[in-house]
C-alpha cells in the first residue's frame, strides 16, 4: 500500500502554514512587550529624577548638620573660655555696687546749702565787638 503523494504535499503545506502563523504570533507578542517596556521606562523617569534630587539634598543636609555641629562645638568652647571673664565682671560689678553705696551714703551726709564768701566783680576791660565768625589759617 503506497502513500498518496498528494497527502504528503498537504502535510507539508499544513506545516508551513502552522510555522508561519506561529512566527507571526511571536512577532506580535514581541512588539507588544517592547511597547509596554517603553511605557514603563517613561513612567518611571520622574521617579528616578526625584530619587537623585533627594539623594543630593540629603548630602547637602548632612553637610549642613556637620557644619552646625562643628560651629556648636566652637561656640561651646568660646563660652567655656568666657566663663572666668564673666565671673571677674560679676565680681567687679559687685565691687562697683559697694562703692556706689558708699558714695550715696557720703552724699546724703553733705549739707544742702553752702555759704560762699562774697565775690567782687571788676568791670571788664574794653574788648573787641562780637563777631559772627573768624577767618584763620585755611587750606593750601
Amino acid at each position: 500500500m503506497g502513500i498518496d503523494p498528494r497527502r504528503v504535499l498537504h502535510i507539508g503545506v499544513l506545516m508551513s502554514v502552522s510555522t508561519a502563523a506561529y512566527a507571526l504570533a511571536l512577532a506580535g507578542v514581541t512588539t507588544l512587550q517592547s511597547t509596554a517596556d517603553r511605557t514603563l521606562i517613561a513612567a518611571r523617569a520622574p521617579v528616578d529624577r526625584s530619587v537623585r534630587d533627594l539623594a543630593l539634598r540629603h548630602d547637602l543636609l548632612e553637610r549642613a548638620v556637620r557644619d552646625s555641629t562643628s560651629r556648636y562645638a566652637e561656640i561651646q568652647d568660646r563660652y567655656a573660655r568666657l566663663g572666668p571673664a564673666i565671673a571677674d565682671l560679676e565680681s567687679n560689678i559687685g565691687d562697683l555696687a559697694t562703692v556706689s553705696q558708699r558714695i550715696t551714703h557720703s552724699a546724703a551726709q553733705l549739707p544742702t546749702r553752702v555759704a560762699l564768701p562774697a565775690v567782687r566783680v571788676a568791670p571788664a576791660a574794653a574788648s573787641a565787638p562780637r563777631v559772627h565768625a573768624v577767618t584763620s589759617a585755611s587750606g593750601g
Partner: protein
Amino acid sequence: MGSPLRLSVVGPRGEQAWTEVSEEFDATDRALSRFREDAELVALDRAAGTGIAMPVSRRLERAVHVTERARRLTDGRFDPRVLTDLERIGERGAVLAGHHHQGHRSRRTDAVVRHAGRGYLTLDDPIDLGGIGKGLALRWSTARVERAGIHDFLLDAGGDIVARGRPPDDSQWRIGIEDPHDIVGSSVAIVGITDGAIATSSIRRRRWDHDGTPVHHLIDPRTGEPGWTGLHAVTVAGADPAWTEVWSKSLFLAGAHDIAIEARSRGLAAWWIDAAGTLEMTSAARAKTIWVRGED
C-alpha cells in the same frame, strides 16, 4: 574737605540750607580730595605723567581750569603742582605710586593741564587742590543755597568764609581776623561783609618739624619749599571764595617786602600781619574794616 563746617542762616530754612551745603561739600570732596582713595583727583594724579587722558567730572574739570587761570594771573605764585613737595616734607595724602621721590622742578611756565577734550584731562604732574577746592566748594554751596531761595546766611569752612545778606543783629556780618601770634587766636581786626567772601593764608596752624627743620603747608611753587616770607598771615576779602583763597596765598608768597605794592596794584582788600605782629592793610581793606585792635 577736611575742615569743620559751620552755617548760620537767618530765617526758618536752616535745615534745607544745611542739606544743600553738606551735599555739595561731599560731592566736591569726592572729586577734589587728595586724601581719599576713591577721590577722582587721586586717580587723575596717579595717571599724571603717563599721557593717559582721564575722564573727569565737571567739578574736577572746572577746578583744574580755575587753578590754571590762577597760575597765569599770579605769575606762578599759585600753582597746584606742589603735591610732591608737600609729600616730601611729610604732608602725605593717598599714595601716588611713582611720584614720591621726584625732585622739585624749577619754576614752571607751562600749563597745569594738557587738554584732552571736554570731560577728559591729562596731567604731567600730580596736583593738590586743597585750598582752592575748599573755595570752590564754598562757591558752589553758596550758589545752591541761593537757588533754594535762602539769601541771609554765613558759611564758614574752617576759616574760609562766605557771607550773604545780613545777620539778624546787624547790617553786615562781622568777621574777625585771627591774630597768628596769639595763642588763643583773638581777633586783630574785624571786617564787615554783606555779600562776599574772606580767606586767610597763615602759618599759625599746619606747621611741623621735618628732619629737624620747621616747615609749613604754604609751599612756594617757584622753589618747592615752604615760603618763609616775613609774613605770618594774609587775609583777602572779595566777591568769590575761590579767588580770595588764591590771592591770600599768592600775596603771602609775595612776601613782606612786595605785598603792599602787589595788593594795591591789583585793588585787593588785603590785611597782613608780619613776623613782628604788625597789622597792615590796603585802602580797600580799610573801607571794610570796622574795628582794629589798639585803635578803639
